[in-house]
């Protein structure tokens, strides 16, 4: 399922520094020795940042911060750049999925997409207690039966499965690890879309 809006809207390019960093890595002038990921409670892609430690120095810097963008993320995936820990990889996964779902928000509307996300996740990930708990806290008030809704659910499933595949094929995580990271990302999607984490802890 490819959304019309997704076909027309082009991803924002990486920053000039991001492009230069990738070029330096490709030409063997520098390499990433440590990659971390930083974000906030809402996990908005616009606020997410990669933090790399590089060797040898790049532009006289050993630490580089680069903002998450869809295209920069794609470039990193193609180069198999992992985060330092599985937990950070899960956050990156969540941010990636949230960014994908923004296309569905635009194409189908937020309400329909929220319901589709709930449905797609509840079909596959209820065996994990934290995910099951989040699903209970974000029950949809209605479930549409339109063709648009089915398309939206298919798109959401494809995004989740597609990234699961990237974890396995491009980032070379083994099967249980890739699944764990994907579930961590899915949990983050639920917290962010339905604003669960802060609410739950501070009633």
């Amino acid at each position, binding site marked *: 399922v490819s959304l019309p809006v997704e076909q027309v809207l082009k991803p924002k390019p990486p920053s000039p520094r991001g492009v230069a960093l990738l070029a330096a890595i490709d030409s063997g002038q520098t390499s990433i020795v440590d990659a971390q990921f930083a974000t906030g409670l809402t996990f908005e892609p616009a606020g997410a940042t990669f933090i790399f430690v590089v060797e040898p120095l790049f532009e006289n810097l050993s630490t580089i911060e680069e903002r998450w963008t869809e295209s920069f993320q794609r470039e990193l995936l193609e180069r198999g750049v992992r985060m330092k820990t599985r937990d950070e990889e899960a956050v990156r996964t969540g941010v990636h999925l949230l960014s994908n779902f923004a296309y569905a928000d*635009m194409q189908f*509307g937020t309400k329909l997409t929220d319901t589709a996300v709930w449905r797609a996740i509840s079909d596959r990930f209820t065996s994990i207690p934290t995910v099951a708990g989040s699903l209970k806290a974000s029950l949809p008030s209605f479930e549409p039966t339109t063709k648009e809704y089915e398309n939206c659910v298919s798109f959401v499933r494809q995004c989740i499965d597609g990234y699961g595949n990237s974890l396995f094929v491009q980032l070379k995580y083994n099967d*249980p690890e890739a699944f*764990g990271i994907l579930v961590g990302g899915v949990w983050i999607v639920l917290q962010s879309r339905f*604003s669960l984490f802060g609410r739950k802890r501070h009633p």
Partner: protein
Amino acid sequence: MNDRTRAALVIWGKGDAASEGLAADVLAAEGYVVEPMHPQGGPDKRRDGICEKAGRRFTMACYFPNNSNQISFKDMKEKFLHDLEGVSTASAEGVVFVTNVSVADAERIILEELAAERGCAAIVYHLEKLRVVLDSAAGLGARVRYLEIDLTREEQLTAFTMISRLTEEIQGLRAYMRGELIDEMKKTIHETVAAAIKSKKEGM
């Protein structure tokens, strides 16, 4: 399903300024940042506003004819193509077309393809999509204001719940800003990843 909302949208009869106001409120409820342009009349360069979402910039175009169930697809398409011309002058990536006309799936696809041929994205908020937003918690205020449909008892409860949730969310964000939630969140992410790996290994 609220037939009153649908009927009020179809009959309409509120004029251009109200249609632009309603469209702006619906898009705001959907997470767009909206900047209306001359809603009381004036040169608008074939766009009723500019709206942004997820870093994407669109023009907002409204089409709210009275008795919209009598409008043909041909008429709506003409208006759509007319409004599409405003996209390039606004340096936007596409148009969000908000209308009280009922649009079938196949018709929506035609509109999207017409826009794509011109290198634009088209997002169509048609009658049913408008109704869904206006009957949801985030759209109830706009429904009362523009369609004069009061809240049912259940909707009042929904609205109060939403306000309460927003308050809790703000409290949560404040706690996060103070650094109180960071460790707890990291711990939960770690537990989730570990539990999923364990579950997968057990199932293999």
